[in-house]
């Protein structure tokens, strides 16, 4: 299979396009995704290839079109709904939490709900407090959803393909600061990445750093800095928040005896709390120090570059958290 260097944005586009060629039951909907190709150009050229019936420009109405996605999924189609900014997930919260997540269960498993909601979130681009959230933990406590967080072009490509083929609702949380990042992607019709389970991206023996989305790159940056100081950190990309597979993280902590979790969201109610809780339950005796969490401060993300940069976890702040445990 050809390995190709491409951006995260191109990876999303390639995955969607290939899957729509493969299966005529796939329809994509979203705001400005038609001839405009999407505000983040994640749908460029799809309207021209698949036409207005399969690439649907929607009104600015997330409840309307995410609800429509449920209706389509219940009746034989496989819709993808693009939420322009993850912040707007709140607009269609009811459809996702009360409808999409529960429909199959409440039907006694009569129905299947094969749909994907893609949303583009995250900070660092000076979009202010209403256009910079990742939304990672908003639906963490809702059974019935799968929630994944691709951190690289390869993951964006492979996980989106898996999500589209999955017969269940999958929330794919993308990150806008990653859209132009480049990486090698193993292109191929059936190149799928699993929707569950973390991955160890950098092996190490002295501390375990768990991160998601854009924080994965920063955790790797922290590991480089620590390495220069003789500290060998292991970096794990959590990848999937629901279901959360904790085994490899526990295994890592049993080896390194230290845990730092990095999230691009506030600390209260973050998925990191779940990671820490489960690790403490399963590997308490292996911990040499209380687990540390690096998160956003407990206020909305500010606009000013000076303030936003200070609020976001950085390689330096992550490295400092690791060192504070040693």
């Amino acid at each position, binding site marked *: 299979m050809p390995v190709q260097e491409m951006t995260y944005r191109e990876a999303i586009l390639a995955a969607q396009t290939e899957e729509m060629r493969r299966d005529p039951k796939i*329809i994509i909907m979203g705001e400005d995704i*038609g*001839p405009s190709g999407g505000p983040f150009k994640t749908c460029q050229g799809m*309207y021209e290839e698949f036409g*207005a*019936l399969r690439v*649907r*420009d*929607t*009104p600015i*109405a997330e*409840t*309307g*079109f*995410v*609800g*429509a*996605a*449920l*209706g*389509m*999924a*219940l*009746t*034989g*189609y496989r*819709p993808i709904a693009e939420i322009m900014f993850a912040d707007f997930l709140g607009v269609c919260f*009811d*459809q996702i939490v*009360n*409808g999409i997540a529960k*429909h*199959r*269960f*409440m*039907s*006694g*498993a*009569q*129905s*299947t*709900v*094969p749909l994907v909601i893609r949303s583009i979130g995250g900070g660092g681009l000076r979009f202010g407090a209403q256009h910079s959230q990742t939304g990672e933990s908003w639906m963490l406590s809702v*059974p*019935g959803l*799968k929630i994944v967080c691709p951190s690289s072009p390869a993951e964006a490509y492979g996980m989106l393909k898996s999500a589209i083929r999955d*017969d*269940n609702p999958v929330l794919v949380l993308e990150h806008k600061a990653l859209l132009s990042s480049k990486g090698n992607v193993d292109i191929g019709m059936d190149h799928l990445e699993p929707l569950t389970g973390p991955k160890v991206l950098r092996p190490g023996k002295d501390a375990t750093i768990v991160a998601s989305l854009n924080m994965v790159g920063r955790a790797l940056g922290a590991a480089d800095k620590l390495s220069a100081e003789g500290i060998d950190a292991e970096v794990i990309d959590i990848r999937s928040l629901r279901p959360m597979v904790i085994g490899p993280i526990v295994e890592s902590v049993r080896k390194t005896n230290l845990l730092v979790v990095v999230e691009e969201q506030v600390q209260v109610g973050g998925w990191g709390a779940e990671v820490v809780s489960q690790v403490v339950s399963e590997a308490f005796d292996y911990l040499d120090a209380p687990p540390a969490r690096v998160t956003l401060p407990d206020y909305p993300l500010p606009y000013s570059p000076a303030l936003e940069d200070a609020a976001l976890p950085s390689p330096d702040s992550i490295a400092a958290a690791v060192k504070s445990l040693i």
Partner: protein
Amino acid sequence: MKSPKRASGATTPKGGAKPKNGAGSNIAPLNDRERVQLFADMVQIREFEEQVHRSYLEGLVHGTTHLCQGQEAVSVGAAKALRDDDYVTYTYRGHGHCIARGMQMEPAFAELFGRATGVCGGLGGSMHLQDIDRGLIGSFGIVGAGLPVAGGAGVTAQMNGRGQVSMVFFGDGACNIGAFHEALNIAQVWKLPVLFVCENNLYGEFTRIEHTTPFEDLVKRARGYDMDAVMVDGNDVEAVYRAIAPAVARARDGGGPTFVECKTYRHRGHSRTDPAKYRPQEELEAWLKRDPIDLYRAKLAKSGVLSEKDAAKIVDKARDAAGAAAKRAAAAAWPDGNQNFTAKMFA
């Protein structure tokens, strides 16, 4: 006032594949057998609901339940206009829509009783009856939430190109929630084959319509979307059918959505714990005199289609059937607490 014509946008997905066997808009008159069946279907819903009420008092129905006595003509008249392959979406006051569509009473009662043999295995309950094989794709406990979903089923119908339609039932209260607006707007812009059937029973939960809505005739809302809208006596089953059937036929032919407002009334309160004391006595009495079943029974008797004796037989048979179904349902086992719940969530 005529709405200005919308400029046709290049990106607007209209039409889809042409139905192969598009129905005409000529609605054949109902024959006597069909009229008796409409009566029997309404009676069956009434007797189902009366049995639910009795079973509730016996402690067999748990939590709450929302009964539809008084509104049977809407469910039955609308269902008469549908084909087996159409999609239907409804609400927590949805027993009538399900029975009208052919859901069997025993699994329906078993669901209300929380038993393993329930139509949803006891996982849904009164507010979430579903029967996918009958096109009963969803019962929504959140006011208005079913409307966007019905739009999605309308997209499927449009894409399939087989002349299917998606019909969604909701109350006057739903016309004030955002999902209503988004769903009607999308359906009209995309020309989806969706029938928005509004059961205007004058009360949103405990509050009369004038306190929540600037006008009583909700067709006005639909006209704001440039959508075809008709208003009909929701207590006249044939009138409901005659209003909805041409709109269904038009939708099957790619003519887009229609809003149908059915004026009707809930005989009982919002839910089982609501005695509905807030309703003026004279209003209640006036509507009880317009009971859709009594009205139709008198009409069929007058036109010589159904004798009083035969009508009474239909009622007795329906009551017995509901009672027997409830009895069998109550004898069923509770759901298995050790079943694979993950498999219930994920396919």
